[in-house]
């Protein structure tokens, strides 16, 4: 029994990373290294206005004064920031008018990834902005969205066409002084998605951004800005993959969300960057700052994430609940296997009266991986009636993995009710036995139990993603149950 278990574990954990291919696309790159000149070069390549260059330079100067943070429960090798290519764009790019003009290699890439780029796939009903390496290559469904007055385009395009909107909100939620990686991103960010949903509009389809790192030795620094005006609603999906490479790649993104009065934003991520091979070499360092602000009363921001990839994940999607009665939600499944490390969680900052937040975090660690939940719930003095419920469960699969929980509860108001619960356990032999007895193989049983365990979170994902997430979960865990 022991043996066969191990074998199954082995098989389950050794699932191949199926997005590890590399597409041979010619790309424009700037030389390695980072200096003020690099920042200026990126800015001029993108023909940016003066104020944006100023923003970048300020960020860069501030970044130079900062040190890599070391407080996370992660072992991060020294990163040589001079050895990274900060800008890489697929060539042959003159703002494609239709898909016919897009490099066929690119289309193939996205086809392989199963992303409905071609507009024929109307049925899929998802508007996609695809970002490869540093540049947004195409955005679908623009016209349909435009009819509703929704702006959904690449960040560079937004800077050119809606400079006022971008300027007003850029850095308003994540200022460049926020942290080391946010400062770096603010200095060298290449592209990303921009979305604006006007007053009273309910976005008729899911918006989605697909990120892919393709070229070698490059870092990806994209920036997403999402503004939901009063009484609007938008659901936004984000997916990421990268080729399998021996060296580590750096991904430092920033996502900012602004939800005005009574607006609702749902942001879902399926993060599947290349996690490195079984021995822990290669893989993406995923150091991401994501934060939303519930600016107006009755607004709501909901983060859902399924984290299965990346060699190292350092990510805390957060909500600033400034409006009265605003709601923040965080649903997360983080899976680590082999040598992966994850330190992820959320921050809920309660400022408005009667603001509410829910945190459901499910960590699954297997192999030799380390999986930490780190979350802050902060209730400020005036947040009367604030309510939080957090539940952080960890599932351990394998004898050599670690699961850690670091909640921080800071409460400054007597009427607040804050609850935190966490449990850590492994799959019980009795549970497996129960399934075996009913003719379910051990591997299927483990899949069943893990899926049930993560269901609470996966259910929160839009349907298109839920299916993918469930599959990912199965692949990431192949062979890890014991």
């Amino acid at each position, binding site marked *: 029994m022991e043996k066969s278990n191990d074998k199954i574990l082995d098989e389950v954990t050794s699932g191949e990373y199926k997005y590890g291919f590399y597409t041979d696309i010619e790309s424009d790159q700037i030389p390695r290294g980072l200096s003020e000149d690099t920042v200026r070069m990126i800015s001029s390549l993108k023909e940016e206005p003066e104020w944006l260059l100023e923003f970048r330079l300020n960020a860069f100067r501030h970044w130079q004064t900062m040190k890599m943070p070391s407080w996370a429960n992660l072992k991060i090798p020294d990163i040589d920031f001079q050895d990274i290519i900060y800008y890489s764009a697929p060539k042959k790019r003159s703002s494609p008018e239709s898909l016919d003009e897009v490099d066929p290699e690119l289309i193939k890439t996205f086809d392989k990834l199963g992303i409905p780029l071609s507009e024929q796939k109307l049925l899929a009903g998802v508007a996609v902005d695809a970002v490869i390496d540093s540049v947004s290559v195409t955005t679908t469904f623009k016209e349909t969205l435009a009819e509703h007055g929704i702006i959904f385009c690449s960040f560079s395009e937004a800077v050119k066409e809606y400079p006022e909107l971008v300027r007003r909100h850029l850095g308003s939620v994540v200022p460049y002084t926020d942290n080391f990686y946010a400062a770096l991103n603010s200095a060298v960010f290449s592209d990303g998605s921009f979305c604006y949903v006007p007053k009273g509009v309910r976005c008729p389809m899911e918006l989605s951004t697909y990120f892919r790192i393709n070229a070698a030795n490059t870092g990806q620094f994209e920036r997403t800005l999402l503004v939901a005006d009063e009484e609007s609603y938008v659901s936004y999906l984000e997916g990421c993959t990268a080729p399998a490479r021996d060296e580590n790649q750096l991904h430092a993104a920033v996502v900012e969300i602004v939800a005005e009065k009574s607006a609702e934003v749902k942001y879902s991520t399926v993060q599947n960057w290349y996690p490195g091979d079984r021995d822990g070499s290669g893989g993406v360092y995923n150091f991401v700052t994501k934060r939303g602000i519930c600016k107006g009363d009755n607004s709501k921001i909901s983060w859902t994430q399924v984290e299965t990839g990346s060699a190292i994940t350092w990510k805390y999607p957060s909500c600033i609940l400034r409006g009265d009665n605003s709601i923040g939600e965080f649903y997360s499944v983080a899976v680590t296997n082999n040598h992966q490390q994850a330190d992820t969680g959320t921050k809920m900052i309660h400022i408005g009266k009667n603001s509410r937040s829910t945190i459901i975090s499910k960590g699954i660690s297997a192999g030799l991986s380390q999986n930490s939940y780190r979350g802050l719930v902060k209730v400020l003095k005036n947040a009367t009636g604030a309510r939080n419920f957090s539940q952080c469960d960890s599932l351990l699969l394998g004898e050599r993995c670690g699961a*850690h929980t670091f909640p921080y509860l800071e409460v400054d108001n007597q009427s607040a009710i804050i609850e935190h619960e*966490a449990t850590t356990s492994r799959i019980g032999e009795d549970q497996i036995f129960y399934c075996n007895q009913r003719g379910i193989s051990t591997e299927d049983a483990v899949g069943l139990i893990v899926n049930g365990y993560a269901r609470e979170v996966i259910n929160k994902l839009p349907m298109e993603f839920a299916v993918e997430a469930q599959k990912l979960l199965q692949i990431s865990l192949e062979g890890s149950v014991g």
Partner: protein
Amino acid sequence: MDSETKIDERYAELFRSRIEQISAGSAPFINSLREEAFGRFRELGVPDRKSEAYRYTNLEPLFSHHYHDYIIPDAGDLNYARNFECEVEDLDVHNLVLVNGFYPPNGGALKTIDPGVSLGSLTEAAVSQSEVVERHYGRYAASDEDGLIHLNTALATDGVFINVPEGVRSEKPVQIVNLVRSEKDIFVQHRNLVVVGEDAEATIIICDHTVSPNNYLTNAVTEVYVGANARFTLIRVQNEHNKAAKLTHTFIHQERGSYASSVNITLHGGVVRNSTYHHLGGEGAHANAAGLYLTDRTQHVDNFVSVNHAVADCTSNQLFKGVLDDVATGTFNGRIVVRPDAQRTRAYQSNNTILLTDDARMDTRPQLEIFADDVKCSHGATVGQIDDNALFYLMSRGINRREARLMLMFGFAHEVVQEIPVEALQRRIDTLVMQRLRGELTRCASCMMRCRESVQ
């Protein structure tokens, strides 16, 4: 030079200027560890708020205050200590009194109570029972993070030594009363060592009091060794004035099959930080850590607990509760660490706090670090108010709101108080808690000594 370096420099100077004097009154073995410990302190410094363990407790103002660092208590203080009587009714204990971290001279001898149980000054024990002291002293109080522990090893003046030999069940608890009494602002560093041999049993009550109203800073380290199948209980009752700062570090090392329980009751204190470390070093051991903090005004209480499951088949439980009033602040840092191979661990942790005002503040961090898979661990934390439903239930049965609230809070606190296995003390603490919750308790009223000089 920033304030941090200044503080470290100040204590370096203190070490250089006082070390001879301190060493002269101490034992050779204890002195032999000072130099190295001081080096470690210089490396680590006084923890600042960037240190995760002290994130919510700011030590800077405490350590930048000018204290008279080394004061040998005069005859009056020692007499005071000799005549000290504990006020708790029916409390049948062996009593020891320390003044400003000094053990009143007893002619160089240790007291013997029960068969073979010796207690007395650590300095004297380091000479007369050198073998025991050398085997245990400095072994368990090891930290790579907290410079204060090394500062204590470097500067400790004296403290209590208790040795319960193999197989002896010491029925009567030992009470250690730490008095701080001085006309000047002083910095006190004492050090206790408790050795409970195999199959032995001991209960210790440590009471922390301040007698005169000056600024005091105490940095105390207690090391406890609990042998195989032994039982040990430590109860700490803290009742100091608002200008006193108390930093205690308690290290409990547990062997196979042992049981150790630590209960911290903080009734009053300016700044209180209790660090309790349970190290489960032998299979089948059980650790129990509990704490209660009832604070008001500007008091700050920080409970730091670390339970380290180093081997398989151990269990642990942590229960910390508090009621914060006025602008009081509270902190709980609980940590369960399950090392690789510590399979079949069962570890639980819970922290509940009631905030009575909008200005009171609670920061809590219940943490789990788990490196083994066959474990069951859970932690829970709540911060909030009294349950409205429970209040309604009582009120609907004719109990007025005020009484009903008191009953609920008393019940809330009693869950920790009942962890005290000494009946007389448990009754006394219950009474104090009730008075405290009614707001009838001034510091002096709750004082467990008959304060003969000045009853303010």
